[in-house]
């Protein structure tokens, strides 16, 4: 009887391993040329439906439909530890898996990672930066200041001005802004919301004076005149219906403030050079497609800014260095 059970167990185990599906290791590390495995893992450190998720899925889709890569992408959302667990896992991957794993990585990922863990950008191979985003400040009909210059004056005079925005990158931009203006954070306050939409809700309800947002999230409200752009957190003005917002240097005797929000794709540190070269080229091709321009860049009102592996690595390393300095982290 027991032997029957053991025989069945062995059979079931073998069968179920097949059912679960094998990830065939297509790429070979020995030869110089790299070919992706039939299944490439792409990890996203945030929930499905969000910005990073859409970014990853659109790119992987373009790669397949435009015939840029002959592989199946398995996009998996892993949010443990606020994304830190998957970032740590990917950073330390080895072997064949390392050549066939990608991770979406934004400035909003790097900042908490550096602040709260020992993980650093140097633990990854940067494949490409695909797009850049910047913020603006908006006022609403409830805002008692006519423009941002008035708000700066009020803050300098001891009044409390409240800015609402999202977590992560927006906070860094706010800190850079108050530092440049020379106002205390106690007078020009920042309330961190879970998402920009929550901050916009607060603005529309008159609970905060200004809203910090990237163009995409705010565009509908600007169209409807519910949000009025008052400051471009960028080195030059925006275009279209955001063109009226001055940069900080136009508001007063200040330098322009911008803390660009970059979206990139990285891989484990032990990804081979050949694989990195392959992937950076693949991403370059994606950035040149019309679909990318129409379905992502234009739609989400981003700034297309492709950087290949080498330039992206320098860019991100510099960003991390500046961030660590600003926070006093080793």
């Amino acid at each position: 009887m027991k032997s029957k059970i053991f025989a069945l167990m062995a059979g079931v185990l073998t069968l179920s391993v097949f059912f679960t599906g094998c990830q065939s290791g297509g790429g070979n590390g020995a030869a110089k040329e790299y070919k992706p495995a039939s299944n490439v893992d792409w990890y996203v450190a945030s929930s499905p439906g969000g910005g990073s998720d859409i970014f990853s899925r659109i790119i992987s889709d373009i790669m397949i439909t435009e015939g840029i890569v002959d592989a199946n992408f398995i996009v998996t959302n892993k949010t443990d530890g606020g994304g830190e667990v998957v970032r740590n896992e990917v950073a330390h991957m080895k072997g064949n898996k390392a050549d066939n794993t990608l991770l979406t990585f934004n400035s909003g990922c790097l900042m908490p990672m550096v602040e709260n863990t020992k993980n650093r950008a140097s633990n990854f191979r940067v494949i490409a930066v695909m797009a850049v985003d910047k913020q603006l400040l908006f006022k609403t009909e409830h805002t008692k200041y006519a423009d941002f210059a008035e708000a700066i004056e009020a803050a300098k005079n001891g009044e409390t001005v409240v800015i609402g925005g999202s977590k992560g990158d927006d906070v860094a931009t706010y800190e850079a802004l108050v530092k440049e203006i020379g106002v205390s954070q106690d007078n020009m306050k920042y309330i961190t919301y879970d998402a920009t939409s929550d901050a916009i809700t607060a603005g529309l309800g008159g609970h905060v004076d200004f809203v910090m947002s990237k163009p995409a999230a705010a565009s509908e409200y600007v169209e409807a005149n519910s949000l009025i752009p008052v400051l471009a957190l960028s080195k030059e003005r925006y275009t279209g219906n955001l063109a009226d917002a001055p940069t900080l240097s136009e508001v007063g005797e200040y330098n322009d403030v911008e803390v660009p929000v970059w979206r990139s794709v990285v891989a484990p540190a032990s990804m081979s050079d050949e694989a990195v070269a392959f992937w950076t080229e693949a991403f370059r091709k994606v950035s040149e497609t019309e679909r990318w321009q129409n379905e992502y860049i234009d739609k989400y009102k981003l700034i297309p800014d492709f950087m290949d592996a080498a330039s992206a690595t320098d860019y991100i390393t510099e960003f991390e260095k500046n961030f660590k300095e600003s926070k006093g982290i080793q």
Partner: protein
Amino acid sequence: MENFELLLRGFSVSLTPINIGAAFLGAILGLIVGAMPGIGSLAGVALLLPLTYKFNPTTAIIMLGALYYSNMYGGSFSAILLNIPGDSPAVMTALDGYPMAKKKKRPGQALFTANTASCIGGTIGIIILTFAGPALANIGLKFGPSEMTAILLIAMTSISWLVGENPIKGIVITAFGILLASMGMDTLSGAPRYDFGNMYLLGGIPFTPFVIGTVGFSQVISLINERNNKTEKIDAKLSIKGSLLSRRELKRLLFPSIRSGLLGTFVGVLPGAGATTGSFMGYAVQKRFKSEEELGTGAVEGIAACEAANNAAAAGSFAPLLALGIPGSGTGAVLLGGLMLWGLSPGPLLFQNEPDFAWGLISSLFLSNLLTLAVAIAIIPFLTKILSVPTKYMIPIITVVCVVGSYSTTYSMYGVLVMLLSGIFGYFLQKNDYPTAPMLLSFVLAPLLESNMRKAFIISGGSLNIFFTRPITLVLMLVFFAMILIPLVRSIINKTKKGKVA
């Protein structure tokens, strides 16, 4: 009146064969996904979103709306039949749904109550959405951090009714739930709290595996004691007719459903409050009204109150989403993403620029509501058959569902670990006479309360004035104090009277 005409036009858009078919498909898929513990409406919508890519935008969004909606129905199935809530809004449904199914041996009636109340609540929500959607959305905007703090304080008072016989243990467990919820990243300061240097704890304790464990897996542990009981044949015929409620019971479910429907719609409009908060508030309010049977023992009123509220809140949350482009919840954010994928932009101009789409969607919600009700009732006999499966076979199946469901929430074994640990702990708490419902409630509400309270203080510069100078906040705070003080004063007066008489 104008809205009514626009709605009728919307029906002409939604009542085409392909759109009806899409709504039907969305309803069925949503029911199945909603019933699976671990896959809540957020994950369900996100996972099923790609299925809608094949269709044109209007059809796709109709299917998506139906999916979201029927998820709310589905969540109650496993709550009622297995005491494992399919998603967080169903936690309260299990409190009366499971006793009615198990102890009173009326699973068909429990499911029928849940479905009917869901339909009533949902209909109320959609009607309000139709005629007052944009206006409601604008009222919702006026609820800032101080107003939300006051509302959440009122919602927290409902915990007092769940503490059971020993209020001290109730207080301990409520505080425990709050402390568990405080582990992880603190959004307002951007710094981690109580992570004890562990990377997983940086993200806090995920709610769904926690619920599945505390309620579901601990339930499985106790089930083992029943495995030798002969599975009683359910007396009522396993048919739809056998699951109908008596006229009296239908009457009993009507007022709680209407009341909760109105309350739930309003809660759904509020920023940050979704179907979960709606169902908690619905249940809490029902406690203040008379129920023929005591709540928590399998009362029709109990099931009706939370189910009507959570479906109404789901409808209500469409108001800020469509009228203002503001997603009221995580699920709303996914829906918003879906809408944007099809080139539609919910926001102040949606009703102006895309009236066919907007009204097509709203009219399809009416349709989905009815279709889902029909499907849900039709499958009651099949669902109740689940209860006649011998317990000894249910134990491994439910264990597997708990494990797989928890894994799917976090795509990692961390979810499973949380589920197991909270299941073991939940079992331990039960054995030592600690109630678990207050812990779940405080786990959900406390972070919202804390975050809103702190935001209010940031705006007011550390001053309490903000809670007493803003009109809406003031009214709500007065209600809150009344809810705490009146029972207290009453009991003191009663004690004094008794003292005088003695």
